């Protein structure tokens, strides 16, 4: 048996740059040859604090970005760090998204989900895909990555199209991003959509997968569960009732498969394994 390449001791590296997307969402940039695929994640160790999983927003082979929301104790502390401070890194982990060349794709982001889907949009555009990038948020000030997706659009000659949906109608479509998805699929331009990708709140992803299934289109969803190890050992993120690990067998799952998980859209588990309803 080949037991090489099993080193998962965190590697410490300095934060190269911090970009403030909003007051509570920052992008941390690192010079590091991560070698990740879109949709994968890393475990980020904040020394003396905690270590948490974060999806990768961008990776060009030399530099990678993590776009992180301040949501709890660990991220509170992370947001106190400055450029040059050291953090630890394990990964990349997880399966990542799949796509084929020159296809029409719809990417559906809810809130922070825009960051990991940005990496997919870029990679798919490089492969000649036409990408509808639909971002949903409560209000216009919470829409993420609008400028970056705009730049992608110019860089790839309009192949990437940005579309916003806000609950309060302060920008783009007033309502859910899944409604925009349905509009796209009903339109003439949407006839050739080959795959739908969703990343965001579980109920949004469930709706997206149902829409895709009803239209006979393949979908991929990035699931989120409490994780400790990130490599399929601790059992914290195992899904009912298949028992597969989100960290290892996912986090990206085929939408139809995800709809078959008995806990999907119903509950997740906390740090001690107790069921918590969504």
């Amino acid at each position, binding site marked *: *048996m080949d*037991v*090489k*390449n*099993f*080193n*998962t*001791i*965190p590697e*410490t590296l300095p934060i190269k740059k911090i970009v403030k997307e909003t007051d509570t969402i920052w992008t941390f940039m690192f010079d590091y040859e991560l070698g990740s695929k879109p949709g994968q994640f890393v*475990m980020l*160790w904040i*020394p*003396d*604090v*905690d*270590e*948490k999983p974060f999806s990768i927003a961008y990776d060009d082979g030399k530099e990678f970005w993590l776009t992180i929301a301040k949501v709890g104790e660990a991220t509170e502390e992370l947001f106190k760090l400055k450029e040059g401070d*050291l953090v*630890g890194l*394990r990964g990349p982990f997880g399966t990542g998204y799949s796509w084929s060349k020159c296809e029409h794709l719809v990417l559906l982001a809810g809130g922070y989900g825009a960051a990991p889907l940005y990496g997919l949009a870029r990679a798919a555009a490089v492969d000649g895909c036409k990408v509808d990038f639909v971002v949903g948020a409560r209000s216009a000030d919470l829409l993420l990555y609008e400028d970056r997706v705009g730049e992608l659009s110019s860089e790839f000659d309009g192949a990437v199209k940005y579309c916003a949906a806000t609950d309060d109608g302060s920008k783009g479509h007033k309502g859910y991003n899944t409604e925009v998805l349905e509009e796209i699929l009903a339109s003439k331009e949407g006839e050739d959509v080959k795959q739908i990708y969703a990343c965001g709140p579980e109920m949004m992803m469930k709706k997206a997968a149902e829409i895709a299934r009803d239209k006979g289109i393949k979908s991929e969803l990035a699931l989120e569960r409490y994780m*400790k*190890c990130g*490599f*399929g*050992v*601790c*059992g*914290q993120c*195992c*899904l*009912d*009732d*298949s*028992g*597969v*690990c989100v960290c*290892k067998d996912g986090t990206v799952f085929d939408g139809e498969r995800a709809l078959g998980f008995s806990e999907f859209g119903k509950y997740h*588990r*906390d*740090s*001690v*394994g*107790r*069921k918590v309803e969504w």
Partner: protein
Amino acid sequence: MTNLKVKFCGVEFENPTVLASGVLGVTASSLKRVVEMGAGGVTTKSIWMEEHPGHKNPTMFGTEHFFLNAVGLSDAGIEKAKGLFAEYGEPQGSGAEKVRPAPVIASIVAGKQSEFAELTEEIVKLQPDIIEVNISCPNIEDEFGIPFACDLLKAADVTKCVRHKLDELESKIPMVVKLSPNVPNIGRIAKACADEGADGFCAINTVGPGMVIDLKTRKPILANRVGGVSGPAIKPIAVKAVNDIHKMTGLPVIGTGGVLTGEDAVEMMMAGATLVGIGTMVYYREAAGFGEVVKEMDAWCNENGVKNVGELVGSIK
């Protein structure tokens, strides 16, 4: 084809591999998947009476030589365990509609002797096939002093407490004590537990504790600073401990520690193990590794004229 079935304290297992406690043992779905992958039995993550938070991350990582963890026995308590057992299924042969796919060992843990008795009473109601009394986790010493398993008298005392409770309840569920390798006299500790009514043993728990320091920050990486060592590096320690316990007590042992392959499992059985506990293997070979280990055991037995895998137990010369 070798007969891979073994009997451990009267409980029949399809093959000698059992999932060790602490790996993939949070949910019933996960345990069932491990059985689907080929394990002969499974052990739950250690169950506390009440919720126990465990340590912050980082809690685990590995290299090709070893694995280090300090999860800190996180668990939601007995209420969650009730749900897990209901989902995992009723005992085999019970005639119930939903029967468990393989025997399940309930690992229990407590901070005081009296709590072990209280927890035993609750766990018996869930009808595990075997109860494993975890007195040897090295990651909780800050809270409770040294583990019970590192003190002969305390180890014997906990065993006596659980035995007394099981007898009082007229329970026939076998009780195994999970021992620590971090002692100079594991055989004698096992003997003391055997004298107080242990039916068998699980050995070993993790070695150490150990520590890994990040050179740039000069900080230990585990949030708990120290953690239990498992994986390939500890196999020789485990084999020796299992042999000591087997020789000293003659009781059945779940030989655990560093088993990654079928040949490792065969070695553990030669040392005296009836069942082979497998945990960290999942890091190296994924859950599907259970089926591969079983195949490798079968192949070794076929090549070496072993008709019944049980013949291997204690066959060390």
